Structure formats: C-alpha cells, structure tokens
C-alpha cells in the first residue's frame, strides 16, 4: 500500500518526461561512473604527490618533499616562468587579433570573406604534429631569411614559441567571440551610431561590454591551451626556453617520480584558479552592472 502511494506521489511530483524507476537508477549510476572516470586519476595524482616513496603508486607516508624539490629546483622554476611569459604574451596578442577577426567576419562584408572564414579555423582542425612540423620548417626558413637579409640574429626560442601559440590561439578566441557577437543584434551598434557615437565609441561603449564575457572566455581558453601545449612547443623551442609541460615530458623519460605529480598538481591548481577567476569576474560584473550607476 505504501509503495503504491509512493508511486503515485512520485508520478504527480515529477514531470512525465523525467525518468523514474530503474531507468532513473541506471542513469544516476552512469553519472557517477562518468565523474569517477574523470576525477579518480586526478585524485590519485594529488594523493601520491604527498607520498614519501620514489615509486609512484606506492604509499610511503606523508611528505612535502616533492613540493620542496619543485620549489628548490632551478630548472622547474625557469620552466614555470617560461610558460607564464609565453602564455601571457601569446594570450594578449591573440585576444586582440582574434577579437578583431571575429568582428570583421561577423559585422562586415568583404571580398574573400568565406575563404578567410574557412582558413581561420584550420588550426583547430589540423593535428598538432602537422602544425608543429609546419612551424618548425617555417621558423627555420623564415629566421634564416631574416638573418641573411637584415643581419639579425634571430634564433628559435621565445619568439618562435610565442608566435606559434598566437597562431593557433587566434582561432580559438575568434570562435568564442564570434558566438557571442552572433547573439548580439547589430541594431545595437546602429543605435549607438544614431546617438552620435563614433565607430570607436560604439565599439567601446556598446559592442565591447556586450562581448566582454566572450573575450574573457577566449582569453582563458587561449591561456590554458598555451600553458598545456607540449607538441608544438617542443618542435619550435630553442635553448633556454623549455616550458613546464615540455620539462615534465622530459622528466618522465628519466623515470617517473612523485616530483612529476607535484608539478602536475601545481599546474592543475593554476588551471582551476584561472577557471574560478573567470567565473568570479563574470559574477562581479553582473552584480556591478545591476546596481544603480548614474554618470
């Protein structure tokens, strides 16, 4: 009797399309499984970064030695700073260029627009290794020519890595910003022009605030990808410009120690902080604009 009552209660409470009974149970189990699949390795990684044993996967008691090793190591420090510098510069430049190309594609008509549109997304589609080989060849030739013609002494290193990262980040920024622009009526810009704004003012006071979440999202994506990249960076890097992921990759070849775990945890934390930061910025912005502001 009570089961019957329960059943009818459930029926009235949930909507008709909502799963119930054993379907619901299976779906829930599936959900938990997927999350376990995602996060169990991360959890293990974090746990074993505190393990006092040279062998990964063997628990030898709690220690912070690996983190101390990370902080003390000149090489890791240098690699970390290389990564940060490259990510900052490549993100900054690709956000500006990516936003500009998004605006051009979404708001203006010009000759060759469709070709440009298709070509812009090529870096997202082509495999990293292909891109890496292309970049390697390009920089080898390009720098040789420049050095020969202008007598410069360009070598592979910061500029080649940053330029490669900019090359693929532009596409990602452009995709995200365009999605945002597509959802914004072009009448808003016309209204601004009609209300005596110049083209720049219309962008500054109307378009930009509207697409800012897209720009921030694109920047975050570009930064994450830049911080993560191993394949392309490894091909175009030069002496003294080992980035953190490339360094970790090198460490593995010399044997897996919990030091790698520690480094990975630091990188993980950095990514998570970036994501949290972007969510926070979005929230503060929403609250801020809801309050009364006269000018």
């Amino acid at each position, binding site marked *: 009797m009570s089961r019957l009552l329960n059943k009818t209660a459930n029926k009235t409470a949930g909507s008709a399309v909502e799963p119930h009974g054993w379907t619901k149970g299976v779906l829930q189990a599936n959900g938990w499984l997927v999350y376990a699949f995602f996060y169990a390795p991360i959890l293990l990684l974090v746990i074993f970064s505190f393990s006092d044993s040279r062998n990964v996967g063997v628990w030898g008691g709690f220690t912070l030695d690996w983190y101390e090793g990370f902080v003390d190591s000149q090489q890791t420090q240098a690699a970390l700073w290389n990564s940060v510098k490259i990510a900052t510069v490549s993100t900054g430049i690709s956000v500006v260029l990516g936003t500009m190309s998004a605006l051009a594609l979404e708001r203006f008509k010009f000759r060759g627009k469709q070709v440009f549109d298709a070509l812009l997304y090529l870096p997202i589609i082509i495999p990293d290794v292909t891109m890496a080989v292309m970049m390697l060849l390009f920089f080898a030739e390009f720098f040789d020519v420049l050095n020969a013609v202008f007598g410069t002494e360009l070598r592979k290193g910061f500029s080649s890595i940053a330029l490669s990262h900019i090359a693929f980040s532009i596409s990602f920024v452009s995709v995200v910003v365009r999605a945002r622009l597509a959802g914004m009526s072009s009448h808003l810009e016309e209204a601004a*022009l009609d209300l*005596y704004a110049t083209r720049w003012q219309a962008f500054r006071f109307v378009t930009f605030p*509207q697409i800012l979440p897209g720009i921030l999202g694109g920047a975050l994506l570009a930064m994450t990808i830049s911080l993560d990249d191993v394949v392309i960076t490894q091909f175009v890097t030069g002496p003294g410009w080992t980035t953190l992921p490339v360094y970790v990759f090198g460490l593995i070849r010399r044997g897996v120690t919990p030091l790698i775990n520690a480094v990975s945890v630091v990188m993980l934390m950095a990514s998570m902080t970036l994501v949290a930061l972007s969510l926070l910025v979005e929230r503060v912005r929403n609250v801020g604009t809801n309050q009364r502001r006269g000018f």
Partner: protein
Amino acid sequence: MTAAVEITGITKRFGDVVAVDNIDLTIADGEFFALLGPSGCGKTTTLRMIAGLEFPTQGSLKIFGDEVGTLPPNKRPVNTVFQNYALFPHLNALDNVAFGLKMQGVDKSTARKRALETIDLVQLTGMDARKPSELSGGQQQRVALARALVNQPKVLLLDEPLGALDLKLRQEMQGELKNLQQNLGVSFVFVTHDQEEALTMSDRMAVMNDGKLLQVGSPEEIYEHPANRFVADFIGQTNLLEGRVLDSETVCLANGAHVTGTSDLPMGTEVAVSLRPERAHLGPRDETHSRQAAVDGVVESVTYLGNARVYHVRFDWMVIEVREENRPGATLHEPGTPVSVSWDPSAVSVVAD
C-alpha cells in the same frame, strides 16, 4: 519654409535588387508623416537612408536644406526609434537615455538632469534604474522614445515602433505619440505596414510598393482618391469591379452594365471601379434608384461584427462585400435573398494599374 526632409531622385540598390526606385519626397517641418507599404516595399530602407544607416546609390537627400546624402548617422540632426527598440542591455534606463548626450560631450550633471526630465516626459518616472530586461514591452518602447527625444532631434524617425505591442497598448501609444509630436512640434517620420495606424496618426502619408512611391497625400486624399489599384486595395477595404473606360464619365463593367465613374483615361483602358464596402447600399430588387448606380446580386453569406454586418453578395462575375452599420431597425438580408447593390456615383473612384 525649409522642408525638414527633401528627397530628390533617390535610388538604393543592394546588388541587383532595387530597394528604393527613384523617389521624390518632401516632408514639412512639424509634420507627422507616415511611410506605408507592405513588407519589402522599401519604406524601412528609405527611413534608414534619412537616418544615415544606409547611403543612397544615387539622388539627393537634404535635411533642413543641408545635403546629408553620405554623412554618417552621428553627424545628422535626426534620431531613430528602432524596431524592437535596440536598447543597450548592459545599461539601465537612465544610462540608455543619457547615451546620446554623453556621446555629444554634455557634462554629466546636465546629461543626468535632461535624461531624467525626458524619462518623466514619457511617463517612466522612477524606472530610471531598471535594466531593459526588467521593463515590459511598453516601457521599453518608452525608453527607446526618450533615448531619441532627449537629443532634441530636428526629425524623429520611427521604424514600426508599435509593431511589438499588443492591440490595447498599441492604441494607447498611438494617441500618446500623436500628442507628444504636437506638443514638441518636431517632424515625426513613421514607418508602418498597418494602414489603419497610418490613417489615424499621420498628417500626410506616402504609400510605397516595390520600391516605388505610389501616392503622397493626406489620409483623406488617399482614402477618397486612391491613385491606382494597389493603393485602393491596400488602404482600407474595397471591392474592385473590373471594367473598361467608355468615356470620361462612364465605365462599362465586366457584365456589360454601364456605371458612372469619372476618369481622364483613354477609352478602352482596363480599369476597376473601387467601391468601399461601407459606401454600398443593399436593398430589394424593385427599389428605384434615383441617380444611383445599381447591380443585382444574391446574398451569399453574412458576417456579424457586432457594430456592423458584412454581406457577401454574389454578382454574375464576382463576389463583393457590403458593410451595413448595425443600427436599430436595420433590415436583415438572409443568405439567398435577391438584392440590389446600389451606390452614389460620387462615392467610387476609377483606378488603373
């Protein structure tokens, strides 16, 4: 007096499509002017050219005597109320309204004061801190109006501003817009596809179709003396009785009947006699008609409208509508009744294509 807007020989092409085809139009200062036509007729393109959001392919466009043909919108003394309002979603009502003043470099306190005054003018007092998403459709419409009016434009352009409102609110806003225009004395140029709205609100109106200007005149002139078949059909309801011109006073209808219809068209021209449903009279067949045109028919069906009845009367060659006011003692004609449809010859107009 200088015209508010003077359009001479303006054409606008988008690729192969001619959106506006060589039109001439003069809008006087302080006039409520409606641009009327079906969608795609070029009325919005014409408005956008006055605003500076499109540039004419050829022709001249003057605002108070100054040639503005290719001047950008921010350099013209006009403001626009956009269809769907185009309010800035990230700004509250006050900042939306003050936007134009801010761009013109008006100092903050003056801008704020004038914006608040205009918000009062459109009866949104106290709503200044709300975001557009927190306002109803009618309120958003008022913000859009205030945002344009605060700049004291010499001409206010309105692109189907009432299109998104429900009927009741629409009628209310029609009256308010008209009052506002009379009090401010500014020219309003109003784009609409709703002929009733154009008739009730405007001082003068222009009817457009396929990029061409068909007729310009007061609502009365256009309703009473449509320039051609399209205008007669588009403005109000009408019955178009096909026929041919016999002489300057007579039209021979499709069934051979001769009716009075004044025109200066050559003999034999295919025309239509435009007979408005409310101007036809239904009576029994044996009724004698002094100086009146009459055609015999049979009542096919009746539509009850509350304040009137619309009879569908079958002639030999077509069905026409006749509207009889629902007055006490009005004769009812059941479907199937043989009747005679009669009208005063001065009540019809003869229109060609």
